[in-house]
């Protein structure tokens, strides 16, 4: 934490404000999630504890990453933060199925209807098309590391915060669109989502390897730092990519299992 305090006073002040906004927003979201779970439990609906743990762990990871990493530290630290904010935390949050919970906890009425209308709206429909979400997510990373954006964001707290927010929300969108654990208006086939994951993973790996050879323009990291950061991006991306694939595969296995059981039950009822 201490390196953050080395910054000149104005930067530190605005950084402190941004940090407190993140912490406050996270606390509000966490409280809302817990309230929804309590509401479900009160009417004797079940909600797995694992989802609550996963969701809060995801939020915790975001806070930890935002608070723990100095604005212009080594590349490796920056990369660790990005992996956490853009990939690890989104997966944990999406595994908590916040949308399913919200739709179940909200009483029928204006708010719930509005939410459903929003989810069924055309812009949201486009955003959760898996390839679109992938381009927003990984395309954003290419822009960040292959233009001056990264160097610019190093000493501008607001721009830096905007980049971080994009990384988080694009990561959430991509994970949401690929996993489709929450109800979505239009379901995409497993093959389409798997192919999207493949393309995004490949683009991520290529970017990581290219960073090994050429630093983002306008930056002066040491070669060792750059190499370690690039490898962290490559192998860290692998870990989360496999976790996403396992999520997808497990979901397929469970849903096909359910339809098999249904068919077996139907066959058992019918006389042979």
């Amino acid at each position, binding site marked *: 934490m201490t390196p953050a305090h080395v910054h000149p006073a104005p930067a530190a002040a605005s950084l402190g404000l941004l940090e407190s906004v993140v912490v406050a927003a996270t606390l509000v979201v966490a409280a809302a999630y817990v309230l929804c779970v309590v509401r479900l439990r009160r009417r004797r609906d079940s909600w797995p504890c694992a989802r609550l743990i996963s969701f809060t762990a995801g939020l915790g990871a975001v806070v930890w990453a935002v608070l723990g990493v100095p604005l212009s530290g080594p590349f490796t630290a920056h990369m660790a933060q990005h992996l956490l904010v853009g990939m690890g935390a989104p997966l944990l949050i999406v595994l908590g199925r916040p949308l399913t919970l919200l739709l179940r906890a909200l009483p029928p009425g204006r708010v719930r209807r509005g939410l459903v209308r929003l989810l069924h709206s055309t812009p949201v429909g486009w955003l959760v098309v898996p390839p679109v979400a992938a381009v927003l997510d990984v395309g954003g990373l290419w822009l960040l590391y292959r233009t001056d954006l990264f160097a610019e964001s190093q000493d501008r707290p607001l721009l830096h915060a905007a980049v971080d927010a994009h990384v988080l929300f694009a990561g959430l969108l991509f994970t949401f669109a690929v996993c489709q654990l929450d109800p979505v208006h239009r379901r995409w086939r497993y093959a389409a989502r798997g192919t999207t994951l493949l393309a995004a993973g490949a683009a991520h790996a290529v970017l990581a390897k*290219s960073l090994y050879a050429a630093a983002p323009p306008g930056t002066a990291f040491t070669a060792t730092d750059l190499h370690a950061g*690039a490898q962290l991006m490559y192998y860290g991306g692998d870990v989360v990519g496999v976790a996403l694939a396992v999520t997808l595969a497990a979901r397929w296995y469970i849903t*096909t*299992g359910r339809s098999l059981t249904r068919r*077996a039950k139907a066959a058992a009822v019918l006389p042979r």
Partner: protein
Amino acid sequence: MVGSEDVDPVVAERAQPRRSIVVCAVIGAAVMAAVDEIVFHQLLAWHHFYDRSTGEVGLLSDGLLHTAELLALVAGFVLYADLRRRRALSPAHGRAGFFLGAGGFQLFDGIVDHKLLRLHQIRYGVDVTPYDWAWNLAGLVLVLIGIALAVRARRRSRTGSTG
């Protein structure tokens, strides 16, 4: 999967030899790719994270192949579990598929990647001819084992169904 235990999910499912071959071939290819990566990068260190000779096409194919290998491993195993759950796995065909996949990947890597596209080589700074021969012959042997196993599995399942 507690739900599938009380009701037998098998509804007149028959062994699916073709699907068994394909699923196990996916696993075989992915395992071979993983073994290559572990042996040549980690153990022998003949390859490095970033080779100076790596061009843009090389980077792209490497990223694609590396990601595909990971996803194929996950997909292959869950499809295999599904075959077993439905009792549709034909083990003999599965074994044949594994060898076909492993050898097929080896040959593809050896001929298309190494020789035709010249994306990367097995080893740098030495004459690669003996390495190429060893690589491709090993792949060919694996494919031949796979073909032999497939022929035998097919013959057996035929006599099994008629007899």
